[in-house]
């Protein structure tokens, strides 16, 4: 869903004073000419606004990503003033949310592979990596598969492979991961709920 609200007005500050900022009026005055600083606010209004939820602590604050309609890129992220919990506000991490987008130069962009004994990463393609991983998973699983335990009870466990994470992916992804792990017979399954 994209939200287009006329100027997602922020009144956090004005509540106490009884003066809504919306009453500022658009008296632009002589300073209007100094466009440099104004550009971003204007771009914001022209942007596609997409709601999201913060990915740090579990308060679940709402954020709005402003997406340039031409480039399709996010150029600003700030708190969602409609959100009942954070009411537009954000802590330091949330306020820096934008730095998680592709604007961050450290983001991973390629499939990386490190061969046994290798000294560094090599770039690979998905089409190379996925079959390779599947093969390794199958070999490791089948080799150490425990169909029956010491008591002879049917346990169908893959004890040689394990899964960790994650509490910072979406619920649907969690469900897919846990379903995959259990179908493969994994029991060593855990994530950050404990740490």
């Amino acid at each position, binding site marked *: 869903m994209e939200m287009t609200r006329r100027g997602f007005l922020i009144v*956090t500050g004005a509540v*106490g004073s009884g003066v809504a900022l919306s009453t500022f009026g*658009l*008296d632009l005055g002589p300073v209007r000419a100094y466009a440099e600083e104004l550009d971003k606010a204007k771009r914001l209004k022209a942007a596609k606004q997409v709601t999201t939820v913060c990915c740090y602590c579990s308060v679940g604050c709402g954020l709005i990503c402003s997406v340039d309609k031409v480039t399709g890129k996010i150029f600003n992220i700030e708190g969602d003033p409609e959100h009942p919990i954070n009411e537009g506000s954000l802590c330091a991490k949330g*306020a*820096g949310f934008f730095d998680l987008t592709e604007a961050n130069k450290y983001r991973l962009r390629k499939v990386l592979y490190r061969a046994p004994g290798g000294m560094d990463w090599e770039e690979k393609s998905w089409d190379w990596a996925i079959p390779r991983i599947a093969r390794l998973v199958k070999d490791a699983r089948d080799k150490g598969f425990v169909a029956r335990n010491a008591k002879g009870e049917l346990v169908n466990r893959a004890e040689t492979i394990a899964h960790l994470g994650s509490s910072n992916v979406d619920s649907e992804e969690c469900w897919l991961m846990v379903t995959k792990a259990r179908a493969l017979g994994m029991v060593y399954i855990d994530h950050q709920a404990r740490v």
Partner: protein
Amino acid sequence: MKGIELVKLIDTSLCTACRGCQVACKQWNEVPAFRTKNNGSYQNPPDLQWNTWTLIRFQEYEDAGGKFTWLFRKDGCMHCTDAACVRVCPSGALYHTPFGTVGLRKEKCIGCKECVSACPFNIPRYDKATDKIYKCDLCQGRLQDNLSPACVKSCPTGALTIGAREAMIKKAHARAKALGGDANVYGDKFVDGTHVIYVLKEKPEVYDALPVNPHVPLSVMAWKDLLKPLSLVAAGGVLAASFLHYIIHGPKTPDDADNQTKEGGA
């Protein structure tokens, strides 16, 4: 002045030093970070810098009675009504906006650094690479588009609020009264009132880097109020005097050659 005069109120009794404002400011204004060191304090960067327009100051304070508190103060431009920086700015880069705040037209700044020394709150910071000064402009661009400043927008606890000046000053005093003790309002009484005011929990002198009695420096007054007009008066006066001299007294022409010879030979 057109528009509504605004005041940003910083209620230190509500600040949790989460530093959302510090990052929101950088995010909106797209200023980079520096690689810092830990110097034994949470306060980082250690001071305002050209790329840090607002900074939470952390201060461990024990009063005379031994009661400990951790003080947090958001530092940044106070947006004075009688702003020394605007007075001294040669290029008009620093200016009073219709909101009563002190705006900064970066493209006009010539990097003369006059404001740096003039500011009674030690706010503007100079960047060598761009040869310009930087400071908070209270998100002028946002204000004009009916958005609250990035710091105010981000503040979780309501420690930062913005609104019409009179109402905010009233609110500040009511808050200080409600808090009791040493709580006080800082900012409404000097430099003709600032457009950022504090509700301080402790007396102003307790806080690091906060002037107790800030004022436009005497040097700025001497320079802008006295010498600036004086220079015109003096130059004009001299020109006028020269003109009068010429028409009244006439130029001091040499005597003609005969005279001179005569006199010289005398």
